[in-house]
């Protein structure tokens, strides 16, 4: 390392620790070493972006500088200009040139640590079960069933029981694909949206939970066809199970928030066992993500035709099977919805910065 370059780098570290936002290439000051090694370019640039997004606490700044990105990817990189051209190891970089993905890797580990440290919210004691209640089960698209089931449980109407009517919930297939990916991102983990979606569309496969034909058939074999209903209008659920209160609407996350959940989930897998990770993602992180703005995820235009074809098969199969249907079976066909066809790294990083600052500001 050149002495001047090292002092310039340590000066920049101090500047960032003090809340500075000057890019490395414009930095001319100097400072004395403050640690064993210079933090990596990814960590320093993340701190600079955090400072730009809001005041960063000294604790958060220290955590950022000590963090390492999880998983396989580029190692902590040296600052270009702080060290002479290296004969060995990865090339030094100008941190401003780093792709957002590199910064997200570091940020998601810090967020995972926050979520893990926050733990699970206190669970409310479930109220006594209502004596007279219609027994039900909610199956199908978990993004639709989740909030309705939670609301019913909160009001003393847990699912299950002998003679329960099975309600298989769904909506247009395009949206159900986005819901299925969201559900996986918030549980066992998922590849990126396109890595997950493209093979499904190419092969014409529909994931288990949203394959309403399979779900209905499985329950029909178990409890009898007369107790299975297809519900394509969730507003119908209260009427079917004899509740006056309207069903709560699903609160889909934005595309960027979902992708952030997926990435935090990967990092959280290194800190918590799978059941705990799933609960932390759904109960601790999800409410924070739901408050973030952003466009929802929609099916990319190039897949519309194939998904329409698949949805038509699904509709016809349900029609042939003859289950009672609440709502319009044509609503399974992909609808034109406003949204973005995939998450953006810039959006994901912006959300990550916001959550980190929310926690430690």
């Amino acid at each position, binding site marked *: 390392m050149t002495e001047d370059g090292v002092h310039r780098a340590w000066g920049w570290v101090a500047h960032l620790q003090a809340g500075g936002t000057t890019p490395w290439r414009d930095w001319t000051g100097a400072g004395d070493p403050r640690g*064993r*090694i210079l*933090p*990596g370019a990814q960590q320093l640039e993340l701190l600079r972006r955090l400072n730009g997004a809001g005041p960063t606490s000294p604790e958060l700044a220290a955590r950022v500088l*000590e*963090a*390492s*990105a*999880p*998983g*396989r*990817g*580029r*190692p*902590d990189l040296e600052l270009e200009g702080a060290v002479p051209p290296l*004969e*060995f*190891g*990865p*090339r030094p970089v100008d941190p401003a040139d780093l792709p957002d993905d590199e910064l997200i890797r570091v940020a998601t*580990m810090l967020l995972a640590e926050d979520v893990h440290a926050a733990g699970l919210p206190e669970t409310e004691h479930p109220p006594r079960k209502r004596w007279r209640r219609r027994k039900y089960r909610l199956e199908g698209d978990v993004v639709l069933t989740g909030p309705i089931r939670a609301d019913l449980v909160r009001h003393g109407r847990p699912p299950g029981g002998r003679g329960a009517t099975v309600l298989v919930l769904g909506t247009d297939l395009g949206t159900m694909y986005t819901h299925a990916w969201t559900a996986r991102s918030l549980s066992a983990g998922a590849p990126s949206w396109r890595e997950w979606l493209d*093979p499904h569309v190419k092969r014409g496969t529909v994931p288990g939970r949203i394959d309403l034909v399979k779900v209905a058939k499985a329950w029909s074999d178990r409890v009898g066809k007369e107790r299975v209903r297809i519900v394509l209008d969730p507003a119908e659920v209260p009427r079917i199970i004899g509740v006056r209160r309207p069903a709560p609407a699903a609160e889909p996350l934005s595309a960027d928030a979902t992708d952030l959940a997926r990435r935090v989930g*990967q*990092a959280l*897998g*290194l*800190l*918590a*066992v*799978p059941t705990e*990770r799933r609960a932390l993602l759904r109960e601790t992180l999800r409410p924070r993500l739901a408050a973030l703005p952003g466009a929802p995820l929609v099916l990319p235009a190039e897949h519309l035709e194939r998904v329409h074809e698949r949805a038509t098969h699904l509709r016809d199969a349900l029609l042939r099977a003859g289950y009672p249907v609440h709502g319009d079976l044509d609503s399974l066909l992909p609808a034109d919805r406003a949204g973005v066809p995939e998450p953006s790294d810039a959006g994901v990083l912006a959300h990550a910065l916001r959550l980190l600052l929310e926690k430690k500001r």
Partner: protein
Amino acid sequence: MATRVLLHVGTPKTGTSYLQDVLFRNRRTLASAGILYPADRFDAHFLAALDLMRLPWGGLEAEAVGAWDALAEKVRKHHGTAIISHEILATASRAQAGRALKSLGHGDGTEVHVVLSVRDLVRQIPAEWQENVKHRQALSYGNFLDQIRKPERDTRIATWFWGVQELPDILNRWGHDLPPERIHLVTVPPRGGPKNLLWKRFSVAFGLDGLDLDLEAERANPSLGAPETALVRRINRAANRELNPGDYRPLVRELLAHQTLSARTGSPRLALPPDVHPWVSEVTSSWIAEIERRGYDVVGDLHDLVGAPPVTQYADPDNPSEKQVSAAALDAIKALLLESARLRHNEERLEHELLETQKALERAYLRPTYRWREKLVRRLQSGSYGRGLLKAYRRVRGRSSRAA
């Protein structure tokens, strides 16, 4: 506080599985000599490394939560020498290496030594590609070579490869603030040398000479030939999407690659393409010069890193002999059939056991007292008075189950 820690940080494919197997099986003998190998399962140090480096590994990371801190605590509590060994530690970042050293007592009175076992790139490059294939990758050898030769090293494959193979950089990260005499390089001898020479070198580096250790290996990470690796790559391409990582590991990596295909030793071996040799020689020479300059302790001969000359008959795994791949595939099918048969027999046995248990349960249910109680409970449950009685009875008895 341990007085001395020997931290073996890589590199992969340098006899590390064998070394770790010997150390694990001889823990008691080592302990009697005051040497701690802190592991309650064979892969304990692997899990600790995953935890330290926050590295996902096909779901295994869930078992690794907190493993590094637990390992470091055992080392700190030990009075004497402790050994830690795992090859993926080679890829740790500077910050992670710093954290590891500190947690083991570096800077706090403990003498930490870093050991790096090293092998020539002529063998390491094909071996690394093969490891990638055995970890579900489907990329061709040509693509792998292109990626590692790109100066930008911006792909995951290249990042990992250089992270675990670029010796001066690994030693920069791990040896940053250690004196050179506490950094030990163990070179892997060229192919065809005395069989136990590598062990002798490990023994010197880890101070194991004079101990009566059982050196019979139970675990190793055997290599595959060119057609066998090509076959596994094709299997990855065909089955990856459907086969979960938890099933891939025992079925493809263990059963097919390690237990079946590695036994086919007559097939052409994977090798470095002759046209890549000059570049490898150039890289290696710069490494040797740098290591000599730094003055580390070398156990063996640094010139072992030069490697063998180019092969005269190169077997390209991207264009393998289809006859050889078919023969390997037949062996694979046979192994899978035998495994299926074993599992079927297991299933039959379990079904039989389940049936016997069900029968025993039914016999218990058929006792007159059980039937009387069941009848009584049914009758009580049919009326509100009876349900109240049952509830009171269960409360008194202190049982939450509603079953009769």
